[in-house]
């Protein structure tokens, strides 16, 4: 009964945590046929039903063993890898060159579109479907290969670091995107690209090419984690095809992995909430100060990280595990990857489909000199998505991402804990999922 009381209070708490935000009038989609709160409660109910169904119908771990993968061979694989590498280096060169040669007065410029839409959003979303294309595209790996940097791998140098440097780099990148007032300036992006290139080449020289890239490059773990949703595996040996979701439980729980995924989720949440009227009501003009944005984004990371650590602590206590909460947090970090993708997709898919069209115009005038190379400089964005469609896609993405998280966490719990303790270890994790779903939908509705 005590466990049930704990379970109940966690769930009620996870819904109640959203109440003050509701009270501030978040709910900008007044045109929807039902109130936002109904969607939030409905999404929570879907998660709870999923949890109960898993407890009853899924008594054995089914996803922990690696599945047999079918290797795809052929000359086209290596050709595709070379084309990918060339695209990556051209993209990097394009960002630097167009940034340096920036005309200065252009509202449409290829560098921000390439970085914030192509590089940051399109590549991970494609990777979730067809495997880690970043592995082939990564321009810094290609540059390292061309210039023979880091030929000697020294994994012992990054063993204790794990992917903590990549986590810090991810935070810095999202800070540039969301907090820096110059995130849209092509010259800023060019300088940032040059600094990042020097940083990664240095990391490769110090730890070895693959070791340095894996530990220090923010986009390598980001794309690798998201691509693990896909049935396709892309690595140095080529392409192999397995099953959906089955690569995720195989991800090694490296130091910093949980923090990395938390940063990915928290920064998107910050982006969404800081753009709402509620945020403006709360903080006014202060919210546009750089120091405030920095502190607020750090606070989001801390709060979501703390909530995840509490869920891991709850699992450890309820499951009477000999592992520490930190080890459990690392063991379950892969269950957050779907949520990170769902948050990113729900927040940014309209950016790709609508604002992304501006690349058509920008390519005709890459240096903002008034050119019209392809006759598309006059292209205007076609707003073909209605707000209702956008909202339903966002709700579906958020709910599906969290349900997948519940499934993966349940399966990992069955493998990590004694069978009769496994379900109860997930009470706190379920509460976290319900809270994150509610938060995600509230932010989107704002």
């Amino acid at each position, binding site marked *: 009964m005590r466990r049930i009381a704990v379970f109940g209070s966690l769930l009620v708490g996870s*819904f109640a945590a959203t109440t003050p935000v509701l009270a501030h009038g978040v709910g900008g989609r007044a045109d929807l046929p039902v109130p936002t*709160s109904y969607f939030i409660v409905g999404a929570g109910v879907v998660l709870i039903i999923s949890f*109960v169904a898993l*407890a*009853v119908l899924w008594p054995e771990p089914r996803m922990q063993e690696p599945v047999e993968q079918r290797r795809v061979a052929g000359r086209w694989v290596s050709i595709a890898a070379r084309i990918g590498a060339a695209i990556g280096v051209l993209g990097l060169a394009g960002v630097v060159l167009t940034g340096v040669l920036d005309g200065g007065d252009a509202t449409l410029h290829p560098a921000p579109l390439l970085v914030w839409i192509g590089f940051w959003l399109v590549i991970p979303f494609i990777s979730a479907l067809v495997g880690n294309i970043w592995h082939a595209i990564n321009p810094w790996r290609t540059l390292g290969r061309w210039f023979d940097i880091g030929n000697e791998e020294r994994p012992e140098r990054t063993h204790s670091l794990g992917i903590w440097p990549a986590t810090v780099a991810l935070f810095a990148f999202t800070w540039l995107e969301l907090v820096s007032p110059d995130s849209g300036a092509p010259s800023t992006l060019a300088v940032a690209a040059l600094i990042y290139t020097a940083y990664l080449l240095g990391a490769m020289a110090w730890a070895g090419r693959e070791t340095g890239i894996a530990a220090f490059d923010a986009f390598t773990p980001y794309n690798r984690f998201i691509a693990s949703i896909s049935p396709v595996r892309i690595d140095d040996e080529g392409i192999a095809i397995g099953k959906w979701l089955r690569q995720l439980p195989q991800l090694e729980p490296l130091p910093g992995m949980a923090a990395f995924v938390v940063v990915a989720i928290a920064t998107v949440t910050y982006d969404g909430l800081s753009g709402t009227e509620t945020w403006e009501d709360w903080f006014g003009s202060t919210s546009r100060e750089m120091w405030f944005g920095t502190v607020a984004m750090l606070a989001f990371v801390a709060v979501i990280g703390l909530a995840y650590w509490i869920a891991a602590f709850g699992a450890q206590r309820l499951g009477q595990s000999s592992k520490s909460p930190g080890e459990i947090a690392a063991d379950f970090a892969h269950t957050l990857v779907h949520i990170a993708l769902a948050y990113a997709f729900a927040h940014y898919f309209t950016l790709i489909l609508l604002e992304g069209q501006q690349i058509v115009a920008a390519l005709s005038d890459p240096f903002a000199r008034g050119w019209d190379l392809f006759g598309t400089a006059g292209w205007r964005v076609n707003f073909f998505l209605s707000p209702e469609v956008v909202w339903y896609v966002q709700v579906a993405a958020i709910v599906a991402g969290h349900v997948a998280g519940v499934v993966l966490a349940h399966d990992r719990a069955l493998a990590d804990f004694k069978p*009769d303790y496994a379900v*109860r270890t997930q009470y706190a994790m379920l509460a976290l999922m319900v809270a994150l779903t509610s938060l995600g939908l509230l932010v989107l509705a704002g």
Partner: protein
Amino acid sequence: MMRYVLAHQGGWDEIALFAVPVVLALLAVRWAEKRAKKRSQEEAATMDEASAE
């Protein structure tokens, strides 16, 4: 969530609409845990027998 629940001043039918699924869910989880415990005990007994042999 409690605010929404308590805001309803309806009769037993509305209480039942909320309470029955909650009770069913809790019973299902409890049953699943008991089943897992039984299976775990059976597996432990089998292993004990195997090691005794």
